[in-house]
């Protein structure tokens, strides 16, 4: 089973609107990362938030982390057509002395021009 699950599975919005994606996970984490994947391409790292952080910003991206609820959200403000992609959260879970990054199934975001 997946450690992290994104919600919603799909999101369709108009250019200029904000997009919010959520990630829930099951076990304690070291940190949580968000990645973007354009169709047919590899994943691109967007932002990492550590377990002792609650909020982080990078350009039009805002990530929050609530360890008590085991959840994170990714907000993309003023979306653009170029933001169309799948977005994944990845949690670093302790396993056998190392941290194993596990991915959810992703949220497919479509931004209409």
């Amino acid at each position: 089973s997946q450690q992290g699950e994104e919600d919603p599975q799909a999101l369709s919005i108009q250019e200029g609107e904000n997009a919010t994606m959520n990630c829930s996970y099951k076990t304690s984490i070291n940190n949580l990362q968000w990645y973007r994947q354009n169709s047919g391409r590899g994943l691109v790292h967007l932002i990492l938030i550590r377990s002792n952080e609650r909020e982080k910003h990078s350009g039009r991206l805002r990530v929050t982390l609530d360890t008590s609820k085991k959840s994170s959200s990714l907000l993309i403000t003023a979306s653009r057509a170029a933001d169309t992609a799948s977005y994944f959260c990845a949690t670093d879970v302790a396993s056998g002395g190392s941290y194993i990054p596990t991915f959810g199934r992703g949220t497919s975001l479509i931004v209409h021009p």
Partner: protein
Amino acid sequence: DARVTQTPRDKVTEMGQEVTMRCQPILGHNTVFWYRQTMMQGLELLAYFRNRAPLDDSGMPKDRFSAEMPDATLATLKIQPSEPRDSAVYFCASGYGTGNGYTFGSGTRLTVV
């Protein structure tokens, strides 16, 4: 920008044939992952190396899959014999430590017929 290089980009092979996928991680990165992505299962971790030592390959079918790092500039994933259910996109990713995010290659799209 530094990048993770994967070869081949696409591979079509017949069932039963051996398949070798190669990855050149970013120079200086000490952590290398192999993931498999399918529509049904999403991103699955197959193998994980740190400083060229395998730390976790529990997600990899041992009877047919093998992963190695003969040196710091090359990671390989081998399937022998290949089966149609191995058809997927295989990604290599590298990073340094656990708090910095990971860089993905463009993937190898494998089709076993």
